[in-house]
């Protein structure tokens, strides 16, 4: 019984305790600079939209202009390259994560911008901390994609070396 009540208390405290602790100075700064903070956040939204369209377009371009056509070429000629097929699904999967995490982050940012920071600075800061975590997830997706793309390049290079060896 004690154990159950301990677990219930733990869950309740985890749900209700705000993510970011806030001092009086921080709360005062949020209330004082509420309009400026919101303007900054709107600027971030605009810059993010530009970055998302550009980078998303590049990912799409790599997938549809390089990875998929090369794999299709190899399949049509019965050349087995399981490593390149694996790369294709990894790139596709990482792109999907990037797209979903970006939407999740933007929804959070949108809610943050629409919040009244003068009314409840603590809740606003709490939401800001959560939005930061979501943004860092998008950043991690980009880092993962960079690793996956570099790995893909190494695999293609290996295939090229195989062609060179066959030529000799």
């Amino acid at each position, binding site marked *: 019984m004690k154990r159950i009540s301990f677990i219930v208390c733990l869950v309740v405290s985890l749900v209700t305790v705000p993510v970011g602790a806030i001092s009086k*100075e921080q709360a005062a700064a949020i209330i004082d600079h509420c309009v400026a903070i919101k303007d900054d956040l709107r600027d971030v939204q605009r810059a993010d939209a530009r970055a998302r369209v550009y980078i998303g377009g590049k990912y799409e371009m790599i997938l549809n202009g*390089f990875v998929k056509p090369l794999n299709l070429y190899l399949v049509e000629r019965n050349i087995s390259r399981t490593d390149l097929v694996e790369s294709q699904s990894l790139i596709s999967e990482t792109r999907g994560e990037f797209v979903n995490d970006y939407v999740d982050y933007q929804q959070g940012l949108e809610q943050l911008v629409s919040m009244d920071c003068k009314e409840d600075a603590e809740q606003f800061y709490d939401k800001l901390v959560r939005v930061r975590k979501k*943004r860092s997830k998008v*950043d991690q997706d980009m880092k993962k994609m960079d690793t996956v793309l570099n790995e893909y390049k190494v695999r293609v290079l290996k295939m090229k070396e195989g062609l060179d060896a066959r030529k000799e």
Partner: protein
Amino acid sequence: MREKNKKKIEKGARNLVVLGVLSTVVALTTTGVALAIYHNSGDIYLDRSRPGFLPDEEEIQQDEGEREDDDYVFQKDTVLDTEKMDEFLEKLQEEIDAINAYEKPFGEEVLSDERLGIPTTESAAGKNE
């Protein structure tokens, strides 16, 4: 006869009103559903034609410049030799470099306390002491 015509006109007018109301309800419902899909799918965050999200002049010029260089697509009907592979790898590297040239697009400092003018937890604690 007159009475019959009057009834017919009244009925027609009522039907016209019902038709108008129904069309409005259908239009509002379909628009609402479309907007909900537009928002929930995340397409709204990619739509740069929204007020306040329009690309600036410098960006438009940059895009036009990029459009002039044709996008590379690996041709399936080519013979795959080392030259073709070299071209493939070179173009792939160009795309990767273009992504890396966009410096930390989702870096954490943009939403940091310092950037937003909020005193950091440490500095606030220091003041309190």
